[in-house]
Each structure stands twice: as C-alpha cells, then as structure tokens.
C-alpha cells in the first residue's frame, strides 16, 4: 500500500523531470547555429503549433468536466492581488510604450532590445528559450477552480 502511494507520488515528479530535461535539450539545440534555411523559424514554430493543439485538447477536456454554467464563470480573486499585479503590468506596458516611441534605441531601451543584448551570450539565449517553453507549458495546463 505504502509502496503504491510512493510510486503514485513519484510519477508526476518523474514526468516533470522528463519535461524539464526535454525543454533544456530543445533549448540548447534551438539556440545553436544551424546551416539549414528557416531552421530558426522552425524551432519556434514547432512549439507554437504543438502548444496550440495541446492547449485546445487540454482546455476542451477540462471544460467538458465542468457544468455548462461554470465554463465561463470567473473564479474569485482577491482585489488587492489584482490591483498589485495590474499596477506592475501597467507600469511595464506604459514604460515599454514610452521607450518604443522614443529614439535612439541605444538611449531608450525596450524589453526587446535588452533581451537582444543579453541574448548575444549563447547560455542566456538558451535559458530565455527554456523559460519561454516552460511558460508555454504552464499555459496549456487546464485552469483549476
């Protein structure tokens, strides 16, 4: 019984480890130099296409398990949390817009220009790609109530 419980608990952990390792390997390959044409486009397009298909499947399965009236109902969230995260998002979007409309770019950096600068280092580029894959994986997960 105890052994069954341990193996049951270990399964999601093993699955997570496999996903993390696969993402790390893919990130290293994707950010390496390839002589093939459109290799960069393909390495980004594949996760996007796969993510969209898996997301639709996952969301449909999740919604089917809910009563119809609960499918579009928004769960409650503390107003303070919404305000704090909303304020940070507004600051980021506002400042990004301010920098985007100013020039030259060397004096007014945007998130993109800073990421491009940092991504000149291959490990940083690979880590950023890995982070992007992880975020995509989290998005596919069905939203729990």
């Amino acid at each position: 019984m105890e052994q069954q419980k341990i193996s049951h608990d270990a399964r999601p952990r093993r699955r997570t480890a496999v996903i993390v390792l696969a993402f790390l390997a893919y990130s290293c390959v994707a950010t390496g130099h390839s002589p093939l044409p459109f290799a960069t486009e393909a390495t980004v397009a594949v996760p996007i296409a796969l993510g969209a298909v898996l997301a639709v499947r996952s969301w449909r399965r999740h919604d089917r398990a809910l009563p119809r009236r609960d499918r579009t109902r928004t769960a409650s969230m503390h107003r303070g949390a919404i305000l704090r995260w909303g304020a940070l998002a507004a600051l980021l979007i506002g400042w990004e817009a301010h920098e985007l409309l100013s020039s030259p770019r060397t004096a007014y950096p945007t998130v993109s220009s800073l990421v491009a600068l940092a991504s000149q280092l291959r490990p940083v580029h690979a880590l950023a790609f890995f982070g992007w894959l992880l975020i995509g994986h989290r998005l596919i997960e069905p939203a729990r109530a």
Partner: protein
Amino acid sequence: MTFATGVAVFAVVLLGVVALELLARRGRRGHATMADMGRWLRRHPLMRWALLGSWAFTGWHFFVR
C-alpha cells in the same frame, strides 16, 4: 543617463514581480503568485487565447525576428 533610467524602470518592475511572488509564497493574505493570476485569467476562454497568443508572439518576436 536615459539608458540607465530605462533599465532602472525595468529593474523596478522585475523587483516588483519578485517581491509580489515572495509575499504570496509566504502565505501573506490578499496576495497571489503569478501562477495564481495566470490560472485565474485562464478561467475565461477569451483570456486563454489572449495569453496563448501573447506567448506565441513573444517567442516569435524574441527568437526569430
């Protein structure tokens, strides 16, 4: 000076994210982690697609363009 100001504002946003995340993980009442916010937003079908679209755009913008 302007470059430093620009980076400083982005750093403040990043520090804010870390601070809110830590406060929520320590169980402070009225706080939510970024994952909680994402889960909350994904409850609505339109927001799911908006988030997935933003993720796809970010990937294409940062890693292809």
